[in-house]
């Protein structure tokens, strides 16, 4: 039986013209874009062979000219609080996220070393231990490193970079591209580790890239500059291999030629915050972990981390959870890592700890209280607020006011004894996603010039009564960065400024890159 012909109607002259124009423009463009993805990796390898550049070679100190090329256009000098009695100077880096920082390993390492050269080195005190804290998700942009991230980086510069914050189609498209670019590694890990949740498979597949861009890069910075470094990233545990077959499959094409690969040892992907010291403590550890002092696995996770990218939570109870909430002793302080959301998790309202409360019974509910129970004196809150800063949260609260329930509560709530809170905030637009916020350092019992985040002068009509204690200027701020959108307390105006900074706003992406520091004094350690 003959199939009936397709329904059809002839095109008009204009239609035929449009069709012809499309064939000669769209199709070659598409072929070009797809082709680049396949020729990119060999081209990078040949390029590296010709130039002699190796991704695993140690980075040096960048020149002023090199820093000029990678510096954020809105970088401001570091400010801070000096105390002659301080024994540890802590820097909180407000990094402005930019995909152009991850063209290749050399660009990335130059970028982060220039942050050290320009925002940290000039402000260090000789002979005093230094800790440098980078924001949460500092390693996230490196997933678009090199040839495999080429199309995602191009997308970030094109009209397709964002749809809306509510429906992040730009982000979904980039994740699709990255899954395709990492397909050989995804397939290899699926075969090796069993079925992997597709939401997080690209993070497992990117293990080799993450180790080179995060673990090795920042552990070298800790050693080269003689400082303690804190950085967070979503990644799997790994091992090092020189097996040629594994190197061929798992090593980043951008890193070729190389005789080393870093391979995920499980499909568990956690939001891990690393703390590296200036000295090697474990020579048998793989590259990037030899001077690692502590690693924290985030718990609880935000809904975005749990539901959208399928991350795995850190331990919630038992000895593993207590160890996760603890931390190492550095310069007389016990340093604990509470990566954003966990720093809000007390399990009870401000100052109202119930009788018989067990802080470590479930750290998904009371991580901060458990951290206090472990004797932590310096709470490091590496942070990346995934949204506008000057806005109302889904709970109806003014966001900067809500943020006080972590950064200020930790040093003001009488039911806990943290002496300091250090919170660097990621800034920048990642496709549809906005990262915005003010970086701060707070100290218990500090009586400085009263300061507050933007719009925090009062409890608004829609704000929860629970937040009343956080309103108004507070003396516990040792240092705070100004907000990229301006200052003041007119919330309607501040919201308009936040819109201007967001994707497709009139000041899109004009966030401030800077840092703050403070000298931490042992005498302000735990209250009795």
């Amino acid at each position, binding site marked *: 039986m003959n199939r009936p012909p397709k*329904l059809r109607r*002839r*095109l008009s002259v204009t239609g035929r013209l449009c069709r012809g124009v499309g064939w000669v423009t769209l199709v070659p463009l598409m072929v070009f874009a797809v082709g680049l993805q396949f020729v990119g990796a060999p081209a990078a390898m040949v390029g590296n062979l010709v130039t002699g550049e190796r991704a695993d070679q140690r980075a040096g100190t960048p020149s002023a000219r090199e820093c000029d090329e990678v510096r954020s256009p809105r970088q401001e000098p570091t400010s801070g609080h000096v105390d002659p009695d301080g024994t540890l100077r802590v820097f909180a880096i407000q990094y402005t996220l930019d995909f152009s920082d991850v063209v290749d390993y050399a660009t990335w390492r130059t970028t982060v070393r220039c942050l050290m050269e320009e925002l940290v080195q000039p402000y260090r005190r000789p002979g005093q231990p230094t800790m440098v804290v980078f924001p949460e998700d500092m390693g996230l942009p490196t997933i678009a490193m090199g040839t495999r991230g080429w199309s995602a980086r191009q997308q970030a510069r094109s009209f*397709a970079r964002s749809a809306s914050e509510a429906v992040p189609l730009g982000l979904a498209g980039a994740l699709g*591209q990255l899954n395709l670019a990492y397909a050989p590694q995804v397939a290899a890990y699926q075969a090796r580790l069993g079925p992997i949740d597709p939401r997080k498979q690209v993070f497992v597949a990117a293990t080799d890239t993450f180790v080179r861009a995060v673990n090795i890069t920042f552990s070298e910075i800790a050693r080269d500059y003689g400082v303690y470094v804190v950085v967070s990233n979503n990644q799997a545990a790994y091992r090092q291999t020189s097996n040629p077959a594994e190197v061929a499959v798992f090593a980043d094409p951008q890193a070729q030629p190389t005789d080393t690969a870093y391979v995920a040892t499980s499909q568990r992907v956690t939001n891990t915050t690393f703390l590296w010291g200036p000295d090697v403590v474990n020579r048998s550890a793989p590259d990037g972990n030899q001077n690692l002092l502590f690693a924290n696995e985030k718990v609880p996770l935000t809904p975005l981390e749990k539901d959208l990218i399928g991350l795995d939570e850190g331990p919630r109870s038992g000895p593993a959870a207590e160890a996760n909430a603890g931390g190492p002793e550095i310069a007389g302080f016990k340093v604990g890592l509470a990566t954003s959301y966990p720093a809000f998790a007390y399990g009870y309202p401000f100052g109202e700890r119930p009788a018989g409360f067990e802080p470590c019974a479930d750290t998904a509910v009371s991580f901060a209280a458990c951290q206090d129970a472990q004797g932590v004196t310096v709470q490091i809150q590496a942070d990346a607020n995934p949204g506008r800063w000057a806005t109302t949260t889904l709970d109806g609260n003014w966001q900067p006011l809500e943020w006080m329930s972590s950064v200020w509560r930790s040093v003001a709530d009488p039911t806990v004894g943290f002496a300091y809170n250090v919170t660097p905030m990621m800034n920048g637009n990642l496709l549809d996603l906005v990262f915005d916020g003010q970086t701060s350092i707070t100290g218990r019992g500090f009586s400085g010039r009263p300061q507050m985040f933007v719009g925090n002068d009062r409890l608004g009509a829609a704000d929860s009564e629970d937040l009343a204690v956080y309103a108004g200027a507070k003396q516990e701020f040792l240092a705070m960065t100004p907000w990229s959108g301006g200052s003041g307390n007119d919330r309607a105006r501040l919201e308009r400024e936040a819109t201007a900074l967001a994707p497709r706003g009139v000041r899109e992406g004009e966030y401030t890159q800077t840092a703050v520091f403070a000298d931490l004094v042992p005498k302000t350690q735990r209250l009795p």
Partner: protein
Amino acid sequence: MSLAEADRAAPLLAQPTRRLAGFVVDVGLFVVTLAVGWIVWSVFEARVSRTPGMRITGQRIVDVRTGEVVDGRRMARRQLLGIPLALLLGAVTCGVGWLFSGWLVVSPSRQALWDRVAGTTVVEVL
């Protein structure tokens, strides 16, 4: 049947401009309703072979050969296979694939990429 006869026998295939209008309305509804409202509405509209945007702009999805409305399975193939395929194509080509997928509508059968996947086209409802 000659091409000229096929032309005369065809129902009123939706013009690319009207297709674009329907698409824009669908995207707008998707964003405004945070996806949820649009998806729920789509389930109801799928039973009469159209999307919410097509309902508003007076269009209907039909079989490209018979001109008859399509069943739920064909609708699912168009919406759940064809459109994600176009998204993927766009994703690997820095957005050019999205334009290409839609631009295919400018053809005698007025079939975008997702229509070709499902063997459908779109007619105007008078």
